[in-house]
């Protein structure tokens, strides 16, 4: 009849009284580990891809013919960048130490923004730090101080990451506008559209969706107010951001994949592995 038993820890005088003596780390029977495995694995693949791309494949990021610039290398601010791809100037020398990637600015901003994101925090605390590995599954760490100490107290800079990411998004938007460039400059004033243009715009929508649905954005637009009735415009904005905020996780994943798809496509066209499918000019 008896299947599991354990002695409780003794009650300390004046200390905590014992809980039910259940030895199992969890009694969950479902596959609680699967979401963490998938999200941790998926995010790990993104980090691996971005790392290889930024440190080891620092070329094929620009298609001169159609003005496609991959979002991973935008803004292109190195002397290594083609003149047409560096609208913001070339502040960085062509050769950098091996530990500084060419898109250092982009990588830095995205790292700060995504690593401090409330959704990604949930994901990597569960998947990588096992804090906890799953709901109602014991975490292995003996001590826990949450986000109260260095370095995790710096999660509180998320809103700064958001402002910087918004700046980056403005540049991405400019890149997307420039991607309406045709091969023949004499046709329609140089206007053109291809599959690459559509991919770049799809990626841009996902990036804006992720940034606008951010919890910090929700707070800034209206969440910090006590009286919505005195700020009708901000309240209206807050309701819209709140609707998007409910899909923040979906935007987080969609934008990760869309960045990779866009980068792979532009790299492939730039390297001559494939030809861009042109719709007009």
């Amino acid at each position, binding site marked *: 009849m008896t*299947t599991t038993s354990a002695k409780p820890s003794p009650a300390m005088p004046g200390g*905590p009284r014992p*809980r039910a003596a*259940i030895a199992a780390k969890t009694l969950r029977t479902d596959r609680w580990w699967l979401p963490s495995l998938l999200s941790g694995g998926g995010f790990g693949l993104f980090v691996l891809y971005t790392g290889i791309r930024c440190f080891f494949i620092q070329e094929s990021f620009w298609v001169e013919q159609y003005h496609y610039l991959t979002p991973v290398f935008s803004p292109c601010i190195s002397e290594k960048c083609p003149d047409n791809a560096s609208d913001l100037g070339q502040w960085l020398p062509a050769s950098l130490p091996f530990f500084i990637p060419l898109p250092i600015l982009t990588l830095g901003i995205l790292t700060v923004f995504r690593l401090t994101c409330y959704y990604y925090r949930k994901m990597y605390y569960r998947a990588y730090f096992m804090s906890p590995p799953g709901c109602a599954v014991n975490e292995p760490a003996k001590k826990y101080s*949450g986000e109260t100490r260095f370095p995790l*107290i710096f999660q509180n800079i998320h809103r700064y990451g958001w402002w910087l990411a918004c700046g980056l998004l403005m540049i991405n938007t400019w890149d997307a506008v420039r991607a309406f460039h045709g091969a023949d400059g004499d046709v329609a004033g140089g206007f053109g559209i291809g599959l690459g243009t559509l991919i770049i715009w799809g990626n841009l929508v996902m990036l804006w969706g992720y940034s606008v649905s951010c919890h910090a954005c929700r707070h800034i637009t209206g969440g*910090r107010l006590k009286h919505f009735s005195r700020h009708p415009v901000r309240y209206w904005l807050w309701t819209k951001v709140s609707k998007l905020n409910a899909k923040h996780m979906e935007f987080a994943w969609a934008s990760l994949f869309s960045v990779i798809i866009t980068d792979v496509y532009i790299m492939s066209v730039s390297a001559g592995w494939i030809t861009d499918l042109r719709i007009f000019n």
Partner: protein
Amino acid sequence: MGTDRHFRVWRGNEAGGELKDYQVEVNEGEVALDVLHRIQATEEPDLAVRWNCKAGKCGSCSCEINGKPRLACMTRMSTFEETETVTVTPIRTFPIVRDLVTDVSFNYAKALAMPAFKPPGELAPGEYRMQQVDIERSQEFRKCIECFLCQTICHVIRDHEENKEAFSGPRLFIRAAELDMHPLDARSDREEFAQAAQGLGLCNITKCCTEVCPEHIKITDNAIIAMKERVVDERFDPLVRLGRKIFRRDRRQPASTK
């Protein structure tokens, strides 16, 4: 037509305990609490189960079913396979009283420690007026039935007994948010209290509390993260502080005029 199901129920008290096996009849439309009552009626008259409304509104019958904190009265037996063993244990985070009953007084002690609603000084009772648009955020948090499932699943205290002194838990965080967002609450130190006295910084927003809430309150998104961002305004964001100085808002305005 009824089927025979295999149940394991934790029996014991402070001195120790064990999971005991039962073969028990389950009929169509029944919930886990019905089955516990049948075990009580047919095999174990002294099985301790706390319950009251059987409608998911009193929050009494919180327990862990197959390892997940749930309300026994809202757990339909049709959600389990007929051959599946159903394991019922008390909620783990709080001291055991007996069988499936735990002592949840931790939550009441934390609630007592929390500063109550402070009405605005310039208004007399009876003069309070609020617009629906201003109060609806707080109303979501008033749906809480105090089942304490969010408290029991929170790893900060579930896995670390030593954090209980410093940490109030999700149930009290929604109370903090409810009051801080209340259009007539006159206190301006709720963020500071949440961070310093309630241990908001210990929460690493892994959202388990939201997942188990039977009232579907968006605890993490609407309360905890909202409070964390408000704490950042007060404590960690130098630009907000600078802005307040420049615009001569270095002292927070009274709540009723913010």
